[in-house]
């Protein structure tokens, strides 16, 4: 165990392992280098996201129209929930750094409490992310996709988005989901949307106050809203399918790439948080059984703390580029 405590008998021998290069222990320095490389990985993802966003500057969805949900409350509240998530993660970073500080003072009781709070914060964050994913995948309103793959949202006269189920009119259907047991056994398809395009079109034509919001931006961070006659023409000539919710191929918010990046980047970050929670739990139990007390140093808490802060750091950037900018 002595090797992890850093102080060895080879003190003052420059090449014997006694001198710490950069005044840091081996473990801490390697954690810093791992963090550097992991930061480059995340930077790669976020830069790729920026690339696609610049490429599709006009048709990229506006975050305020996508992430509007708060648990247990109905209505349109952009930003609130994700701000809460950010705060939870910063808070758990604070309890982590307090645990590290208590470790420097060899205060086992305090380290225990703060590690516990950190784990709790991490779990709340991952839970919130699960909620965010669920609402994103389920979708709320549904949309019409054009032949070219653009997304058309349906709005009422006041400019509020309307769900397809509120106006679609049932029609005869000659199409049902193909499952492998019903036809050729080696092919099948995913769940069909609840409404066909014809039903949505019939409903749209029957409700004279409905209009279309296109996927194209009209300058100042808004999407173009068409007049009633233009809307009718748009949906009749270009509309082709109905999209409900989001998966890797279609999403009701905008280009499929948007959902792909959302799943990939927040998913990769969520994976990091989960690993962090796992490491924190291991450290927590080590603190409980007194491993670091016996070792005479709480440096392990500090190393895992570095990783945990890094996860928080990445979230700060994800928050900015997915929700704010």
């Amino acid at each position, binding site marked *: 165990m002595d090797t992890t405590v850093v102080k060895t008998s080879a003190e003052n021998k420059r090449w014997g392992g006694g001198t710490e290069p*950069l005044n840091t222990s081996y473990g801490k320095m390697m954690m810093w280098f791992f963090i550097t490389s992991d930061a480059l990985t995340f930077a790669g993802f976020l*830069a790729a996201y920026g690339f696609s966003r610049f490429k599709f500057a006009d048709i990229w969805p506006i975050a305020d129209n996508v992430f509007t949900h708060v648990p247990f409350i109905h209505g349109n509240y952009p930003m609130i929930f994700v701000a809460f998530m950010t705060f939870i993660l*910063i808070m758990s970073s604070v309890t982590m750094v307090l645990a*590290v500080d208590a470790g420097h003072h060899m205060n086992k009781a305090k380290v225990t409490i703060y590690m516990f709070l950190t784990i709790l914060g991490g779990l709340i964050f991952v839970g919130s992310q699960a909620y965010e994913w669920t609402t994103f995948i389920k979708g709320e309103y549904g949309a019409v996709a054009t032949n070219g793959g653009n997304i058309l949202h349906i709005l009422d006269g006041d400019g509020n988005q309307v769900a397809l189920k509120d106006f679609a009119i049932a029609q005869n259907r000659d199409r049902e989901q193909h499952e492998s047991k019903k036809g050729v056994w080696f092919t099948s398809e995913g769940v069909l949307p609840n409404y066909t395009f014809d039903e949505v079109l019939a409903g749209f034509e029957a409700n004279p106050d409905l209009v279309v919001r296109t996927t194209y931006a009209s300058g*100042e961070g808004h999407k173009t809203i068409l007049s009633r006659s233009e809307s009718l023409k748009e949906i009749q000539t270009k509309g082709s399918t109905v999209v409900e919710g989001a998966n890797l191929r279609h999403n009701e918010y905008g280009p499929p790439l948007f959902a792909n990046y959302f799943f990939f980047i927040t998913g990769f970050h969520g994976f990091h948080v989960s690993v962090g929670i796992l490491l924190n739990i291991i450290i927590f139990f080590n603190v409980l059984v007194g491993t670091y007390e016996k070792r005479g140093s709480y440096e392990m808490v500090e190393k895992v703390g570095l990783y945990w802060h890094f996860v928080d750091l990445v979230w*700060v950037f994800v928050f*900015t580029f997915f929700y704010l900018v």
Partner: protein
Amino acid sequence: MAAEAHKLEIFRGLIKFKSNTQKIWGVLIFLSLVTAIEVALGIFKPEILLVEVLGMKALNWIFIILTVVKAYYITWDFMHMRDETASLRRMVVWTSVFLIAYLVFILLQEGGYIEQVFRRGFVKSDF
């Protein structure tokens, strides 16, 4: 590392804390404040900040700068970068800052170019 080894000043010595614990809470308050400003700007989107500055909306520049400020304080005070030797700090920070800035510049440049190609009608997607 002993507790005394922490540097307890932030904002270039404008605020000096009495203990490390106090500094942690101080930084938390600062970070929460910055996040609150970001969220408020994100919800209300003031008209004056929607003008273009250097190819991007002023509001977006503000968001990005505030993000970097937050990242600085998380790294320097929560990860104790302030207390590490200058060489370790430079190894970690300069490497990532240089590589990330380079990558972001290249990719955004290319993305903007492809957008121009689309916009000039060489590729049709609205049908």
